[in-house]
């Protein structure tokens, strides 16, 4: 396949940045999108120019490191998949592909297509855990958990923290990301002890970091590579309201 790529190039966080056009020839339709970028970079290096920087690591769809806004969609034109699992057969010979970084105020560009997503870590740090210390915990089977709740918690916990929800949301809201973590613990008995503080702290941190408000467009759910449901957002809203209305804290 021969392709024309319009790629966002930006030297560093302060630089202005612009699109540059590249032609890449002879791409195998069996290669992944990132391997196509590897081919491009190889050709750029051959010309002794700086290759395009992009985030990637496991290349099997689980680490959440890869990003890219491809032709108007986070993680590109396939559903329920990360960019590293996107394959070139989803494109046609001669296509023009526009590749942009995630765009959101809390995700500043570091270089080219690489953005800083540490804001998501900060949200988890504000309460996305149980405070159990190492050791001194009861036997794993001491508390029974019904399979249905446990499965729902697992659905929520499968979030890979890639930030596609924020990138897809017209408001740059991180509600799906936060809700997935809040839900996981709201559904499990282990999470009950700290539930009031957790939801309030995590929402407060999310707001502080400058993520937008949720207006229920559900674009996040549509673009989530792990298909995390917006029912989790409703559950978080419920948790939040009851923490404000019912709790004395």
């Amino acid at each position: 396949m021969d392709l024309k790529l319009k790629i966002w190039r930006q030297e560093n966080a302060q630089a202005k940045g612009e699109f540059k056009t590249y032609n890449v020839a002879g791409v195998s339709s069996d290669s992944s999108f990132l391997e196509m970028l590897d081919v491009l970079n190889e050709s750029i290096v051959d010309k002794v120019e700086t290759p395009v920087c992009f985030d990637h690591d496991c290349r099997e769809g689980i680490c959440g490191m890869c990003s890219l806004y491809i032709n108007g969609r986070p993680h590109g034109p396939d559903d329920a998949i990360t960019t590293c699992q996107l394959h070139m057969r989803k494109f046609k010979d001669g296509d023009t592909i526009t590749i942009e970084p995630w765009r959101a105020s809390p995700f500043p560009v570091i270089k080219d297509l690489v953005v800083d997503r540490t804001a998501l870590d900060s949200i988890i740090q504000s309460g996305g855990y149980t405070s159990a210390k190492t050791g001194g915990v009861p036997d794993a089977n001491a508390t029974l958990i019904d399979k249905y709740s446990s499965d729902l918690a697992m659905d929520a916990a499968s979030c890979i923290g890639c930030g596609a929800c924020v990138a897809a949301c017209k408001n740059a809201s991180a509600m799906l990301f936060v809700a997935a973590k809040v839900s996981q613990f709201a559904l499990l008995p282990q999470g009950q002890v700290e539930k009031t503080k957790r939801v309030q702290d995590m929402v407060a941190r999310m707001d502080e970091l400058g993520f937008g408000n949720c207006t229920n467009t559900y674009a996040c759910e549509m673009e989530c590579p792990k298909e995390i449901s917006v029912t989790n957002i409703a559950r978080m809203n419920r948790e939040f309201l009851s923490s404000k209305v019912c709790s004395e804290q």
Partner: protein
Amino acid sequence: MIKFDSKIPEGKLKDKWNNYKAHQGLVNPSNKRKLDIIVVGTGLAGGAAAASFGELGFNVKNFCISDSPRRAHSIAAQGGINAAKNYPGDGDSIYRLFYDTIKGGDYRSREGNVYRLAEVSNDIIDQCVAQGVPFARDYSGYLDNRSFGGAQVSRTFYARGQTGQQLLLGAYGALSKEIEKGTVTSYNRMEMLDLVLIDGKARGIITRDLKTGKVERHSAHAVVIATGGYGNVFFLSTNAMTSNGGAIIRSWRRGALMANPAFVQIHPTCIPVHGDFQSKLTLMSESLRNDGRIWVPKNIEDAVAIKEGKKKPTDLSEEERDYYLERRYPAFGNLVPRDVASRAAKERCDAGFGIGTGLAVYLDFKSAIARLGEDVIRARYGNLFQMYEKIVDENPYHTPMMIYPAIHYSMGGTWVDYELQSTIPGLFVGGEANFSDHGANRLGASALMQGLSDGYFVLPYTVQNYLAEEIRVPRFSTDLPEFEQAEKDVQARIDQLMNIKGSKSPDYFHKKLGKIMWENVGMARTADGLAHAKTEIAKIREEFYKNLLVVGTAESFNPELEKALRVADFIDMGELMAFDAAHRDESCGGHFREEFQTPEGEALRNDKDYMYVGTWEYKGEGVEPELHKEDLQYEEIEVKTRNYK
């Protein structure tokens, strides 16, 4: 001559760890605050250790190569984690888990360490459940278990096909809690480039900030490395792109011995290589071999016709197929251990029966679908089938999957004693980065167990024991001459690579090295092949330092420079692996020397001469490393030959 002592505590095997804990040194809370620990790596071992040190009250500096601790490659483990809980009541025990692990490792691991691993395995499950890890449960609400290779009991706990992810997120949660409290300082997008020694003890590291290119110094009273394995020496592996053995290779250069580097695991069921631009290999869970049957065409003409696209696998009748694992190993059939299955696939493909590019075999679900129905197969493996279809664009319900072995895990690593301390005092190594628990072959679902065991339940005790002697040592200034010198060394290394200004990218050398490693130090090794590899690697090194091209600048975000630094390490590591493989004149576990096999083509171990840990001392770039041996004694276990026929 380096002296080393495994420091196995006295007493009976089952009392050793308790004895150790009962007599170890402790640090009081007010002193803990004054002691710094550097933890490099944020995976199961590093993340869990950093979180636990923080909880204890130490001042922790945690280094992460990615943008977040949650990205560590532990996340990619699919199958599960073993523990000797015996919840199903099927006869499991700590002793049995210990025994299976030693046997699975082909009697090349240390009894004391492995017994402790089995002992703390149960605590890991308790800990993870308390953290809210959503392990699979049955309708009664109790935890569910499944079976894995190399065991006769169901002892594997799992969270769908994402067990590694869930365990890592548990550790990441614990770590996040400590970061919020301020006991742990998190440094992300930082790579460790050197270890700093003061008076022979590990006292700090030199890092490069991957965002800015800034080289920085960090001091501590002890350094813990948990940066995973070195499988990426082979270029193509199931490891993540940034997974690299850099931290342990650099520590090796500073004097930490490297143990059993030739022991790498090759996983039999990966999606085959599709072309020259492939960057990594994707694993398909071992569980597929429960229902899938592995075959190649019986007639070489059919294999050729399939390769040329003239025939489809579904055109071949049962008589025209060779179910070679069932033929060779009637007792275990498709469920032979990983090393055996991998070698058998290679043997068929080398003989010309491979399909696809010639380096692939079929994994066929036709008879399972006929027996159980498509729905049952979908329920069992649906997500894996979907992943396969996304990557290969073929429907595995209708046409057999293509698979081929790939590099997966490194059993070898930094030599550590019972305390997980290397030969450099104050340098501790945990998880895949050390060599300690898996011998020559790792069983499925044991990597997660070992990572968390080291991180939660071993290092917090043993590092404290070490620091108990350090309470009078004040914080180290990074202005000390040792730090200055180490930073200069790192800077010189960077400048050296930047200034070669040749014409070939780091990837060019990496691919070339990977090919030589895969062909000569891969699944089947020979004395000649290994000698050839040593020569070729020396040539690659020479060319690398003459003709490398690193574009961009050192003082910026520059993945090309990162790669170049890693490839330089991989060259040394590859060479070391060839030395280790060449010296070990036997076949055991993942190490298969063609000269040492039974008439039926099975691995032939030599316990008389090689029942030891082969550890290597660094002697300089391109200089032959020196071998030291740690003899292995088996007191509780009778050493036997593995047989799967």
